[in-house]
């Protein structure tokens, strides 16, 4: 008796949705900053200059990708920069014991993995709020690095190890820049076209309903912490390789820059929405702003003011738009 109405699959195409998205707006901003930079400094468009500019974001973006997934799932990890410090210290210590390049890389990644597992256990087993648990491990991990190193530094990394942070694949294209694109593609696939990615969105939007839908919420969250730790370890390898030394203050304050990158990329700090594409553009925007200001000799403090204003604008803008737009209810 029910002559079932046909409900169409989609009304608007994905392309039209993309045009109205945050990512489109961000892309326009990136282009504007690029053009502004090109006019502001005659050196900006030099290929080597542009290549150098990418180092401002490649290592941070390696962490920003898994962090985006973690924030979409409704959790956060503030200890990532301290994981870099601890992983770098572990590598330096191994170096002093005579470890070679392959061992150094494994130790860096392994330390990241262990730190991530520790964060994950605190949140999923003990049920601590991730913001509190990772503020704790943020102090803990870097504290250990300070105890081991004091005011000393590890230097003298082998030449082969320098490949990660200082090597080039071809012409001006750095190893890190290639790694950045590989990870961007991998995380975009993971988040947007796998069922794992779908469960991340579901958990971030409504963890109870996700659990009731048979999703193993605890397992997914633990994996995300593990992943964030692992890629913090990778960033530690790249950064240590690029700097050629380990100090306990390495990557100080990076956690906020990484979270800024994720949020600027359109990932809701409340969880549940966002895309890897947005984080990629945000990485470019932040990298170019940093580099452009550097070329123009703008003091660092002005830059933090700029980034701070940008971040507040990003979070406030959608709310302002929502308030201006008349509400519709179906």
């Amino acid at each position, binding site marked *: 008796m*029910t002559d*079932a*109405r*046909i*409900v*169409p*699959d*989609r*009304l*608007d195409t994905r392309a039209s949705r993309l045009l109205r998205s945050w990512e489109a707006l961000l892309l326009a901003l990136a282009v504007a900053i690029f053009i502004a930079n090109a006019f502001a400094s005659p050196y900006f468009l030099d290929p080597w200059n542009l290549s150098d500019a990418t180092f401002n974001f490649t290592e941070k973006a390696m962490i920003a990708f898994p962090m985006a997934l973690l924030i979409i799932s409704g959790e956060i990890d503030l200890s990532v920069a301290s994981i870099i410090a601890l992983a770098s210290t572990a590598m330096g210590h191994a170096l002093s014991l005579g470890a070679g390049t392959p061992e150094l890389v494994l130790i860096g990644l392994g330390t990241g993995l262990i730190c991530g597992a520790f964060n994950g256990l605190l949140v999923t087993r003990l049920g601590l709020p991730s913001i509190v648990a990772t503020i704790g491990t943020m102090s803990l991990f870097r504290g250990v690095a300070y105890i081991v190193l004091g005011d000393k530094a590890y230097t003298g990394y082998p030449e082969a190890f320098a490949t990660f942070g200082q090597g080039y694949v071809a012409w001006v294209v750095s190893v890190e820049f290639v790694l950045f694109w590989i990870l961007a593609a991998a995380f975009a696939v993971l988040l947007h*076209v*796998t*069922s*794992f*990615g*779908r*469960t991340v*969105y*579901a958990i971030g*939007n*409504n963890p*109870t*309903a*996700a*659990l*009731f*839908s*048979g*999703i*193993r919420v605890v397992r997914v969250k633990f994996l995300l912490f593990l992943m964030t730790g692992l890629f913090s370890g990778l960033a530690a390898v790249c950064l240590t390789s690029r700097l050629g030394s380990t100090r306990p203050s390495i990557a100080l304050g990076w956690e906020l820059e990484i979270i800024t990158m994720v949020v600027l990329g359109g990932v809701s700090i409340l969880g*549940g*929405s966002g895309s890897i594409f947005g984080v990629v553009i945000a990485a470019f925007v932040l990298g170019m702003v940093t580099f452009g200001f550097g070329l123009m000799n703008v003091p660092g403090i002005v830059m933090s003011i700029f980034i701070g204003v940008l971040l507040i604008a990003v979070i406030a803008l959608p709310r302002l738009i929502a308030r201006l737009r008349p509400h519709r*209810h*179906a």
Partner: protein
Amino acid sequence: MLVSPVTEAPAPGAERAAVLALEGIAKSFPGVKALDGVRLSLHPGEVTALVGENGAGKSTIVKILTGIHQPDEGAILLDGQPVRFATPHAAADAGVTAIHQETVLFDDLSVAENIYLGHAPRTRLGLIDWRRLYAQAREMLARVGAEIDPTARLRDLGIANKHLVAVARALSIDARVVIMDEPTAALSHKEITELYALVERLKAEGKAILFISHKFDEIFRIADRYTVFRDGRFIGEGAIADVSEAELVRMMVGRSIDAIFPARAHETGDEILRVEGYSHPTEFDSISFSLRRGEILGFYGLVGAGRSELMQALFGVTRPSAGSVTIDGAPVSIRSPADAIARGIVYVPEDRGAQGAIRALPIFQNVTLPSLNRTSRHGFLRLAEEFRLARDYTRRLDLRAASLDQELAQLSGGNQQKVVIAKWLATRPRVIVLDEPTKGIDIGSKAAVHEFMAELAAEGLAVIMVSSEIPEILGMSDRVIVMREGRMVAEFPRDGLDPERLVRAAAGIGTKP
């Protein structure tokens, strides 16, 4: 009854004028007429029991009395003068206060602060006068007969004492009308006795009390008058002394089952699920039942009888302390919803917003969420498969939506419920548990859900339906189990069903507590 319209025998209590009276109140929500021309009057020094089934409009009237909702029509008379309670604050100022099932108190404040929050005594400098605060709080607590330290943190109190704090708060704002909404739902026997004593004391102080309860023993013990609502309409009122339990039950449920339920064959197949000795430390005890293919088993009971808790344990959300579950004769261990789904048991939760629907995700993603392992290949999503699954199941439920890519939040409650049910059917379950499947949805969607349930049973699915609506239980079930206070108290086959026996079993009438 021989009451001639001319004599107008004064109802008991009518000598004293009503302190608060509602006349001709109507209130509609989108798709539902919650109240339709009801009246209610509350007299000083008297307890008026408001009686009605779920959905009769009791909570709506409480919200109107406390200024949370505004009536569409009708008048509120305070001492005979029409008033408007535009905000909860206005109602409080007029001396109307409510003690809810879960009264809003603050766990981390002291007892005294909770009592006087918003109207604490002040020093000349405008700071809180702590000494007077504690002294007055102590006095208030003594008035309600509570031995509670006013400096204690509320968190450290038991539920009963929290109730007393709520009552003390009500008294502290000099309430004239006290509304008690299911005040004994969470209390032990001894605590209930203490609450009765308190109600007597409030009566003696001349407060008008509106007492909402499903428990008839309570009503007959402490109420002076009664008012009955049914389906948002006023049915009757009078003195408790003039009415019997049976009459009250009849007024409450006495309807021809006007809602039309689908015709069913009532043929059931082999046993599929058997639950034995299922117990939980606090929520339910020694539950045993079996379920057959094609059967609709109704679970009836009052709110708080432990039905949802039982179903959630079966679904792996919580762990039982004892008992066993067998499916098709084989014992199973269910430790998570994922396990339950894998065994073919699914649960459509009562709290759609919090547990069932992911409102920010599109319809098709909601439908496929528990079936992702089928719609994806090697962990990669296949959108065409997802849309196919979502289309198949939402069409069967006659979903009304602009597109399957629409956010769930944009649909009406009834259509959201259809999506949630579709999501579970798409997992091809063998046992489906529906917890209050038509709560809060419009009539049209209700009929669609009922019709669909009948279809599912006819296809051999075993259905458990938890419902507090008597017509739904009567209209749909092959068999009904009644729960009260975490235990199974009665089981009725289809032909032994009648509304009065159901209500009596659920409310514990004629049985010793």
